[in-house]
């Protein structure tokens, strides 16, 4: 049951250096002798497991801190200003200072709050996000576990964040927060369907649900083979992580901070952490599934290529956030049900036909499939966009004609003139 752990590079390194003699640690010279005497393999196993989890969790925390800093620097660039530059070189420690500040704030629980749910919600929010990372291959042998149902695991785990938002909103006992929770239900549930369906095409090509397997199956990045799938998945994951243009749950200009209104101190900090970790998580999923994960030229280690692609996707998400306003809730739901859902169906049909024609494609045939998929993708996106836009054009005509409304010193509005005359 624990065999998968031994495939992990970090776990192997620690375990084999500690344990006395184990049949798991064999190289060409025979058994590797570790520090511990024989009979203490179980201690080595526990310690190695603990260290792996420690490195893993703290790696995510460090990545979040770095991504907050990077995002702020980028905001600065986009907004024609400097961004954080006081704490440490290039302001690198500003988010560390923020984290310390958040920890020392007073922890307020409103009197109307449901205490138990109020305290559980942040934990529910942050756990699924950490679990996403456990199945993502970040390089050759750099993963916690390569589940054979990795994609399904991610889809089911991410849907828990919606539950956490609703619990947080309800437990706050705050009407504005309840609005936020209701929006979260509508948006997150709507976008889970196109999100899951957009991955079906990938599964057809890859033939496996394991993320490691999907990376290995990508002879060319799946973004080229699955343009529609990538488009839908990118938009849906923006909605899932509450980023602009779908940040209805946390609509700052309407709801203040939405479901976060009553949270303070480290509970707020955990939500904040979960939000940024989710952004990194979905960038990691996009990188793995559509951008061929850790694959790249051999001059640099595979982990580097994974990180590079991850950062590019993150920057794209920040770019979207910086330049676009928010959509209205009816438009968001319309986009999910009338736009993205149809696009995923088109994608599934097209991919199914292609896979039936070429079950075992050569390199040339793969490029032909990519070309056909792009030919399907671009017109269908344009057509769906036109259909979605048509309703808006009708409402514009609801105004008046171009004739100036007659006013002057002698012409008042008809109803007003009548009143004056009666008197």
């Amino acid at each position, binding site marked *: 049951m624990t065999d998968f752990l031994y495939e992990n590079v970090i776990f192997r390194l620690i375990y084999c250096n500690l344990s006395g003699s184990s049949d798991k640690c064999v190289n060409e010279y025979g058994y590797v002798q570790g520090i511990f005497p024989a009979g203490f393999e179980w201690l080595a196993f526990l310690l190695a497991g603990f260290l792996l989890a420690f490195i893993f969790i703290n790696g995510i925390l460090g990545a979040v801190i770095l991504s907050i800093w990077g995002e702020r620097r980028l*905001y600065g660039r986009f907004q024609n200003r400097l961004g954080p530059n006081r704490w440490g070189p290039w302001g690198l420690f500003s988010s560390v200072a923020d984290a310390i500040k958040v920890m020392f704030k007073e922890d307020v629980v409103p009197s109307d709050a449901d205490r138990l749910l109020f305290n559980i919600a942040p934990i529910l929010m942050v756990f699924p996000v950490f679990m996403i990372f456990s199945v993502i291959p970040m390089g050759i042998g750099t993963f916690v576990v390569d589940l054979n149902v990795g994609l399904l695991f991610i889809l089911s785990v991410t849907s828990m964040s919606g539950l956490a938002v609703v619990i947080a909103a309800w437990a706050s006992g705050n009407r*504005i927060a309840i609005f936020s929770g209701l929006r979260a239900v509508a948006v997150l549930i709507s976008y889970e369907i196109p999100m899951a369906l957009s991955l079906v095409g990938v599964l057809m090509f890859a033939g496996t649900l394991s993320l490691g397997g999907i990376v290995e199956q990508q002879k060319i990045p799946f973004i080229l083979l699955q343009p529609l799938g990538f488009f839908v998945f990118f938009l849906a994951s923006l909605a899932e992580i509450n980023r602009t243009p779908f*940040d*209805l749950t946390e609509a700052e200009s*309407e709801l*203040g901070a939405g479901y976060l209104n009553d949270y303070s101190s480290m509970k707020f900090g955990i939500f904040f952490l979960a939000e940024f970790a989710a952004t990194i998580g979905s960038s990691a999923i996009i990188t793995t599934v559509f951008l061929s994960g850790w694959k790249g030229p051999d001059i640099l280690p595979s982990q580097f290529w994974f990180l590079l692609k991850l950062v590019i996707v993150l920057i794209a998400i920040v770019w979207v956030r910086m330049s676009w306003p*928010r959509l209205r809730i009816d438009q968001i739901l319309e986009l999910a049900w009338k736009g993205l859902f149809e696009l995923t169906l088109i994608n599934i049909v097209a991919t199914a036909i292609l896979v039936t024609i070429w079950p075992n494609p050569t390199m040339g045939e793969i490029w032909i499939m990519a070309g056909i998929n792009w030919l399907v993708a671009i017109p269908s996106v344009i057509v769906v966009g036109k259909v979605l836009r048509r309703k808006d054009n009708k409402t514009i005509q*609801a*105004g008046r004609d171009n004739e100036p409304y007659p006013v002057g010193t002698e012409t008042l509005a008809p*109803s007003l003139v009548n009143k004056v005359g009666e008197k």
Partner: protein
Amino acid sequence: MSTTEPITVNLGPQHPSTHGVFRMRVTFDGEEIIDVEPVFGYLHRGSEKLAEERTYTQVLTLTDRMDYVSSMLNNQAYMLAVEKLCNVEPSPRGVWLRMIAAELQRVASHLVATGFLIQDLGALGTPLIYAMRQREYILDLFEMLCGARITNSYLRPGGVFMDAPDEFWPALDKVLNDIPNALDELEELLSGNEIITSRTQGVSILLPETMVNASITGPMLRAGSVDWDLRHRNPYDFYDQINFQRPLHSSSDNFARFWVRIQEARESVKIIYQCLERIEPGCVRPSFHDVPRLIRPEPGDAYAAIEGSKGELGFYLVSDGSIAPYRCHVRAPSLINLTLLREMLVGTLFNDLFVSFGSIDLNMGEVDR
């Protein structure tokens, strides 16, 4: 069988997008607004009452703080009322200078309104900063004119406080060159962005009859294709010598209100160029022999109104012959434009609440005074 019931939410007075301290008791049916009850007065400072205990010149500093986004226009409206009350003959150079200042202020005010629209729509500050950057250059010009950026107090009875320094004119030329580009940028963002157009067009439509009956003025009225501009209908200062277009829009929705503001800012630039052609050297204010420092008007009253950036901004002054006004009343366009808030909002969604609210372009300093 489940039942639903409306929920009443208290928005404000502390809220990120109420443009000050404004409170609304909004009743929602799901996401749809079914009732709005505005509650204001949180920024009431009693400016009108305070004016009764100050001399006519001192009241000027109170007007700065009413609509703090367009102080120059407030100054202009107040000074016109004082001049009418005292029968002061203004000196031409002073009038041209204050017209330039007023039009610059109008551009700045419209830039702020448009920038905050996109902020209310949910963009995280980037477009707002692009709009505010251009406003900074205009405020720099005000700093050259009178030393202050927001609370100007630049005008005096019959003219302005002092002549513009020499470095003002080249700086003004540069700003006037830049403004059209900035406005192009903003207009492209407004009418070129799919999300902005689909969210603002066809939302919160007000019929012209309704607006005229509610005595709404300014860009809000002109967005409903009502050609009413005091600079044209009832010219004050030297506006009768100036040619300018009055941009109208037919659809009277949120988009039209902001489109009209941007076009109006373009016209302001043209007006300033015409002022620059006509301005001549001379005194910027009448001598102290004609207008003493301590004005004591004859008993009587006067009402003067200008086309402010938000609508008709009028000052009504009553004098009892003493050094302070007996009564001062402000016709604040922000407050009167707010009267149709319920008609605008009922039937729209929560997401559009603050967009429609912002499309009135109100300033709480002026609403509560």
